[in-house]
């Protein structure tokens, strides 16, 4: 309950007087008579009494006033639980603000007062049926937030019902309620997963983020639920609200790592770490031999990368970060750098954002310096940065250091060393040490620089320098006797020595360890130390004894007496550690009868070569955690962290992502209603969406006046309203062109129809076949090509979409490239926006729509630049006048049965031997004509279906294979098209691949 725990008692001392007062209030037992919680203040006591009266009064305004004060109490963390009976009575109030405040109260205290809370349940059950979607949603929100186990069945029922609600807002609330119920009663999992499965199919962008969140919390292991929704989620992503985007992207990252093969195997070449590449090369050769097949990225994998990339421009830093981590974990290595600029941009955001982003950059920059090196200056430390930001920037600069930029970085470090923030200065010295070990060319320079720092006035700086020098020397001691000499010289001045040695006794260790490199200096240091031995610190004494022992072993002639003197002093020291050490050393190094065998090994014990310490980044291997996660920030696994799996060796079945029901025929009718969200498709025919939306606007206006209507009527009304707002459509044709951002669902349809039928038989897309529109010689520098991207045209139902690519081969820029007027041949054409300027060597791609009227007659028109005019023409192949249609085998046979006689043209062809297996057949047919594959039960029969773009007439193709010959049939009402298509297919199929 709310009283503070014993644990907090201990803390209250730190948190000061304020907490003590709180404690006094809150530990008062709440069970005592009314208002006891405020017993310390008699005024509060009275106030509380009058709150109860106000809540029970008949005046709405008084009740509201009272509830506002109660909420104020809750906000301040005061206990208001004894008002529960008085508050709960108002749950059915008509005043919506009062009702909402009661909800706030209920959610806060229901867990403590379960019996009383049950009184309110019937009100919510009633509200769940309310015609107003906001009321339904908030009733569900509160009902599911009341953590009372008894009502679990009621909650379950309410969630199931809300999941099928007509309002996407209510369905969103249902998705949230799933998680609440799950945390209240995990036994309900099985039923909840069913609801999640249903909601995952929801096409509303509003629901997508919330249901994926529920999926992540309740059943993240049920990856199979995602398959069928994968493409839809990818395509909706752009339109989902920002928070949902983050959740979906993170989930899809995990999904992709289980479903696609690694794109990294191929680009070992791009590996920056040359050393690694060197070692890997052998392995790779072996692999290469085994795997003759080159890596082809799964189109679904590409789809995800392509659709997330624009989100790098989001204003929401969490979205940008999640796309960055997606690219880091999923993209081919050479593509990862597209995220760099956006991450650097985030560094201009709030301090907290910088902190998280810098951590992630630190991890990335260890593996891939090149990504961030061009932006090195963005990581320069500013005096106004917070300490943790400074340290992270230092870390990144150290990671980025290489031969080329090290001088710049060291110069920058030199200013940091002088910083007034001494902890930061010390961290900088560590960083210099790391640079020096990583880049051998500068080790000497760094060492010299560090030695200079030894004369620094600040002790932290000096101490840190000695430690780093020690580490550096250990890696290559032989060449650096000068430095040890220099350090030894510091001993001349007694005050300096004192200060110095106290802070860093490791210098004595250093001289002892490398005494052979400084044979003259070391005994002298020992002499100086012997002089002041008795007055030194304990730690210094221990190190002096060590030094003496080492010198005795290497240079006993000069130091025998000194060592004995020191050992004698040590023997009678006050500190037992020193006495013990002295005895031990004496036994070890001074040979006598008792010591026996051990002293033979003294040299090997004391002067054993010690491994050099490794200086490495704290961020090394941090990418074992998914970037951008809490676990990555903390560098330890947080509760509920979901592991990112390794790439599978062999990709699981790709066809699981295919979606069965595709209404390809609807594609074109949909394409002109840009703003409509998927959910409206069923209720709306789009041909007259402007008209219908204006109508529904009217009806919704009239509807708002009369609130109380029958449920059924109201539901209809809401639908109409929805269509009214969402069906809003730009009226200017110029604008219609540019709503590209909202095209997602069109693209979605496109993807389904294109990916699905083509992919069933062959996973590769048909390669782009460009045709010449204008040669650069005739075009005076301007060259143009066109190809058919085979997408449903977004400019009109009857148009074929054509992409034009302009190249400027001339030596001056071309201005104002556009299509003049209409075609000379009568086809209607939807022009592109004039290209203002095309620089030399630049190229630009635009798309146009042409209504070829289902004929192969070329569309001729004039292509103009500011100064020139060229007559050009687009010649469509008959196969490009089609759009694929999906149908079942039965439908195909039925339709084929209707199109016999005149409408059927057929031929027998001799197939090239390579074409005999099934895959090449469909590949070839698809390469000639834009048709959809009809799933076939027999291996030797291939069926394809399509329709003509302009008229919508059905075109059916059937290939029946018999050994090396095949029977080819084309059925369509348009006999001309039929025979032309037959001819083209004939040539394609009989030629060798």
């Amino acid at each position: 309950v709310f009283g503070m725990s014993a644990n907090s008692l201990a803390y209250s001392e730190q948190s000061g007087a304020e907490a003590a007062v709180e404690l006094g209030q809150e530990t008062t037992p709440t069970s005592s008579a009314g208002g006891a919680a405020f017993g310390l203040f008699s005024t509060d006591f009275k106030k509380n009494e009058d709150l109860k009266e106000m809540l029970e009064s008949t005046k709405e305004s008084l009740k509201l006033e009272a509830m506002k004060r109660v909420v104020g109490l809750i906000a301040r963390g005061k206990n208001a639980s004894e008002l529960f009976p008085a508050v709960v009575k108002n749950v059915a109030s008509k005043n919506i603000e009062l009702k909402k405040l009661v909800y706030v109260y209920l959610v806060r205290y229901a867990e403590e007062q379960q019996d009383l809370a049950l009184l309110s349940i019937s009100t919510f059950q009633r509200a769940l049926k309310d015609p107003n979607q906001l009321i339904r949603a908030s009733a569900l929100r509160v009902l599911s937030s009341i953590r009372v186990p008894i009502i679990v069945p009621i909650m379950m029922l309410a969630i199931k019902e809300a999941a099928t609600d007509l309002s996407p807002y209510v369905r969103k609330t249902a998705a949230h309620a799933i998680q609440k119920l799950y945390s209240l009663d995990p036994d309900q999992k099985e039923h909840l997963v069913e609801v999640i499965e249903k909601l995952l199919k929801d096409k509303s962008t509003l629901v997508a983020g919330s249901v994926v969140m529920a999926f992540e919390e309740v059943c993240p292991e049920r990856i199979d639920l995602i398959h069928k929704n994968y493409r839809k989620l990818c395509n909706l992503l752009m339109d989902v609200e920002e928070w949902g985007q983050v959740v979906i992207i993170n989930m899809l990252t995990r999904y992709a790592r289980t479903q696609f093969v690694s794109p990294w195997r191929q680009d070992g070449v791009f590996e920056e770490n040359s050393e690694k590449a060197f070692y890997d090369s052998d392995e790779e050769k072996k692999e290469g031999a085994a795997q003759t097949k080159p890596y082809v990225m799964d189109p679904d994998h590409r789809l995800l990368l392509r659709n997330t990339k624009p989100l790098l421009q989001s204003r929401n830093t969490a979205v940008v970060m999640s796309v960055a981590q997606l690219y880091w974990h999923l993209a081919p290595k050479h593509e990862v750098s597209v995220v760099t600029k956006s991450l650097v941009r985030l560094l201009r955001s709030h301090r907290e954002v910088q902190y998280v982003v810098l951590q992630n950059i630190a991890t990335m920059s260890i593996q891939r310096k090149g990504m961030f090196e061009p932006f090195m200056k963005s990581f320069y430390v500013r005096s106004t940065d917070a300490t943790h930001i400074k340290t992270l920037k230092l870390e990144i600069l150290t990671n980025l250091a290489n031969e080329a930029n090290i001088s710049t970085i060291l110069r920058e470090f030199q200013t940091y060393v002088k910083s007034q923030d001494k902890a930061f200065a010390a961290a900088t010295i560590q960083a210099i040490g790391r640079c020096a070990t990583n880049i051998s060319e500068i080790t000497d320079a760094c060492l010299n620089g560090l030695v200079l720092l030894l004369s620094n006035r600040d002790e932290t700086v000096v101490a840190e320098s000695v430690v780093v020098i020690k580490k550096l020397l250990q890696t290559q001691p032989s060449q650096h006797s000068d430095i040890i000499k220099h350090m030894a010289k510091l001993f001349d001045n007694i005050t300096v020595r004192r200060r110095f040695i106290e802070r860093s006794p490791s210098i004595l260790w250093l001289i002892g360890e490398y005494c052979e490199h400084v044979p003259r200096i070391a005994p002298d240091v020992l002499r100086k130390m012997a002089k002041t031995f008795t007055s030194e610190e304990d730690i210094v004494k221990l190190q002096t004894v060590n030094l003496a022992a080492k010198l005795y072993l290497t240079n006993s002639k000069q130091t025998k007496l000194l060592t004995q003197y020191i050992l004698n002093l040590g023997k009678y020291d006050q500190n037992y550690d020193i006495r013990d050490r002295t005895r031990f050393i004496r036994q070890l190094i001074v040979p006598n009868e008792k010591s026996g065998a051990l002293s033979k090994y003294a040299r090997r014990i004391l002067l054993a070569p010690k491994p050099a310490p490794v200086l490495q980044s704290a961020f090394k291997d941090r990418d074992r955690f998914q970037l951008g996660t809490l676990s990555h920030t903390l560098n330890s696994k947080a509760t509920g962290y979901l592991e990112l799996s390794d790439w599978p060796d062999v990709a699981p079945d790709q066809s699981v992502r295919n979606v069965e029901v595709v209404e390809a025929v609807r594609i074109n009718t949909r394409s002109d209603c840009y703003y409509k969200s998927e959910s409206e498709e069923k209720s709306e025919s789009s041909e007259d969406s402007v008209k219908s939306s204006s109508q529904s606007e009217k009806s919704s206006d009239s509807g708002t006046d009369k609130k109380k209507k029958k449920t059924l009527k109201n539901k209809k009304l809401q639908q109409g309203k929805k269509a009214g707002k969402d069906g809003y459509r730009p009226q200017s044709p110029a604008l219609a062109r540019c709503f590209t951002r909202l095209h997602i669902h069109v693209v979605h349809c496109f993807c389904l129809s294109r990916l699905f039928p083509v992919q069933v038989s062959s996973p590769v897309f048909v390669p782009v076949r460009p045709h010449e529109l204008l040669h650069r010689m005739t075009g005076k520098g301007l060259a143009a090509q066109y190809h058919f991207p085979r997408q449903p045209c977004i400019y009109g139902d009857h148009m074929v979409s054509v992409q034009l690519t302009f190249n400027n081969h001339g030596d001056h820029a071309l201005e104002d490239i556009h299509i003049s007027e209409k075609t000379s041949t009568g086809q209607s054409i939807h022009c592109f926006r004039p290209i203002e300027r095309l620089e030399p060597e630049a190229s630009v791609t635009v798309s146009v729509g042409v209504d070829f009227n289902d004929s192969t007659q070329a569309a001729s028109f004039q292509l103009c630049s500011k100064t020139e005019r060229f007559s050009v023409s687009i010649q469509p192949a008959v196969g490009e006048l089609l759009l694929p249609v999906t149908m079942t085998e039965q439908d195909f046979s039925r339709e084929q049965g209707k199109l016999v006689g005149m409408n059927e043209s057929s031929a027998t062809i001799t197939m090239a031997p390579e074409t005999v297996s099934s895959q090449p057949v469909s590949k070839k047919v698809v390469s000639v004509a834009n048709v959809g594959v009809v799933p076939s039960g027999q291996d030797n029969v291939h069926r394809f279906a399509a329709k003509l773009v302009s008229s919508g007439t059905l075109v059916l193709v059937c290939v029946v294979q018999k050994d090396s010959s095949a029977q080819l049939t084309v059925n369509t009402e348009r006999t001309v098209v039929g025979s032309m298509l037959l001819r083209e297919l004939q040539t394609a199929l009989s030629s060798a691949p």
Partner: protein
Amino acid sequence: MIHSLFLINNAGDIFLEKHWKSVISRSVCDYFFEAQDKAGEPDNVSPVIRTPHHYLINIYREKIFFVSVIQTEVPPLFVIEFLHRVAEMFQDYFGECSEVAIKDNVVIVYELLEEMLDNGFPLATESNILKELIKPPTILRSMVNTITGSSNVGETLPTGQLSTIPWRRAGVKYTNNEAYFDVVEEIDAILDKSGTTVFAEIQGVIDACVKLSGMPDLTLSFMNPRLLDDVSFHPCVRFKRWESERVLSFIPPDGNFRLMSYHVNAQNLVAIPVYVRQNINFFETGSSGRVDITVGPKQTMGKTVENVIVTIHMPKVVLSANLTATQGTYTYDPVTKILVWDIGKLNQQKLPNLKGSLSLQSGAPKPEENPSLNIDLKIQQLAISGLKVNRLDMYVEKYKPFKGVKYVTKAGKFQVLTVPSHV
């Protein structure tokens, strides 16, 4: 996701708490206070703190700590971004995000927080949607409400919540239709003692205030969009259109919003609008130092440089300053050791100068590092990158709106080093 939120002021009082799941005792904040003690400065508190059972993710804004309690794995930026949105929403609703404003409007704050998160997951964060659900307080409205008994809470679901343009509320009506755009650029720079640029770049934002009736569809184009190197947009901007044509095409939210932020191409040389001649010396003997600073205009494109302020963080040993300013006023705070010289407008004819002596703590060694200068400035009617808006067009709606574009240049993190950069 987000379990609870505590708002804590600088004195360490928890003045508001809100829980979205079951209640977590406020004693969890003790871990935060511990971290705060260790950090010293509020800015040094780590944004992510681990406690035995929870994780605390916090931001510090307008002298308030927003401390959220997390129980399971969640992207930290998700929470940080959300907390900043909460702070911005307070700013938007109450005109300021301060302890007083939050305490005065505690009911509205609570209603807002209730709508913004459901079970710890963001539900509605668009200002336009929230304002339909919960109306911002005005004096007139609260008076009317007390008399008529009507409330601040909307009764129907805001239409934006269901549409593909959630950022705009429906049924907007103005008698005067206006759209204003402020192009604000900031120069981040480090100059060395000799005035050479060590590092300089320009960041800019376009803030908009759009008050247009109906559902206007706007297109804003630039004379020189190539200048823009890296951009981020409000969700209303159609990204594809920007990619293909470099124009901003959008249906704007109603009211104030940030349309885009951008970074100017690094290859372009950055014009530095002022130069600083300075000499700060500390003497080995006599516990004193000398200051001599002159500021003058450099590349200003003929505009006046205004609001010039020089700030210096002096070393700890500086006790007091005895200076004379030929223009403006200076203050020295002996506690924070900050010297502020507020100059005002820069005059080409008579350059402002600040000169005089510093007295140091006697006996203390002279500071080894000279402090650097932070410069603040403002230039009206100039975008220092040269970015220019070409035209703004409105489609769909019929009326003629009033349109305006304003340019301002400011100093961002503009630092002048008093030591040569090549040591």
